[in-house]
C-alpha cells in the first residue's frame, strides 16, 4: 500500500443526535486500515460517542452548531480530537471525576469522561468557558499486525 505511515481525516457535522452514530461509524471505518480487533473498534466507538454526545448535550445545550473530529494515524497510534465551540468547562478536573454531571435531569450518568479514560490510552481535555472544548485522545491499535506493507 502507501509508502508512508501517517494518514489523516477530519469530519465536521451538525450537532444533531442522529449524527452520533455517523461519527462513531466514520471513525471506526477510518481505523480499519490498522487491522483493529473488534474490541479496539468498540473502544474507539464508545470514546467517540461519549465526546460527541457531550458536545451536543453540554457544549451546545442541544442547539444546532458544528462539531469537528480530527483523526490521525501515526504507525499504530490513533489520535482523535473532538472539538466544539460551545460553552466550555469551567473546572476540567472536577468535570472529569466519575459520576460528576451538571445534567442529572437529563439522566446523564457522569461517566462520560470515565469511559473515555477507560477505553483510550490517553486523554487530555482543553477547555475555555465561552470558547469551547477540545478532547484529545490516543489509542494504540492493531498491534501485532503491520498495516502499511
Amino acid at each position: 500500500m502507501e509508502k508512508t505511515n501517517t494518514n489523516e481525516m477530519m469530519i465536521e457535522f451538525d450537532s444533531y443526535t442522529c449524527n452520533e452514530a455517523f461519527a462513531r461509524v466514520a471513525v471506526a471505518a477510518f481505523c480499519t486500515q490498522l487491522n483493529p480487533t473488534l474490541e479496539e473498534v468498540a473502544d474507539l466507538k464508545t470514546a467517540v460517542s461519549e465526546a460527541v454526545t457531550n458536545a451536543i448535550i453540554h457544549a451546545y445545550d442541544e442547539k444546532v452548531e458544528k462539531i469537528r473530529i480530527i483523526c490521525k494515524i501515526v504507525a499504530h497510534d490513533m489520535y482523535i480530537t473532538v472539538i466544539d465551540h460551545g460553552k466550555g468547562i469551567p473546572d476540567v478536573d472536577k468535570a472529569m471525576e466519575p459520576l460528576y454531571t451538571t445534567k442529572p435531569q437529563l439522566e446523564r450518568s457522569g461517566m462520560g469522561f470515565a469511559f473515555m479514560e477507560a477505553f483510550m490510552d490517553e486523554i487530555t481535555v482543553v477547555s475555555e468557558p465561552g470558547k469551547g472544548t477540545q478532547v484529545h485522545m490516543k489509542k494504540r491499535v492493531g498491534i501485532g499486525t503491520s498495516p502499511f506493507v
Partner: protein
Amino acid sequence: MKEICEKRGNKLYVTVPIELDHVEADQLRQEVERMLVDAVIREVIFDFRNTVFMDSSGIGMLMGRQRSMQQMGGCVRVIHAGERIQRILELSGVYKVITIN
C-alpha cells in the same frame, strides 16, 4: 415492528436495541416510563441479548429506571449481557445497585 416492552405478570421485559446510545437511551426511557404509568410493575428486566454497543447514556438510563423502580418498591435487572456490555456495567458501578444476570 416488534414491541420493545412486554409485560408478563408484574414484570416488564425490555428488549434493548443493538446500539444503546444517547438516542436509543432516550427512547427506552420514554417507553418504559409510559408503561410504568398504567401498570403495576415490580421488576423491569432489560434484555441485552441483541446489544453490541453501549455508552454512558445507557448507564444513565439504567440508573434512572433503578431510581424510578426503587421509589415504587420495585427493582431493575439486566439479563443476557455479553462480555463487552458486562465490562461496561462493571466499569460504571451500576452492578452495585442493579442485579446482573
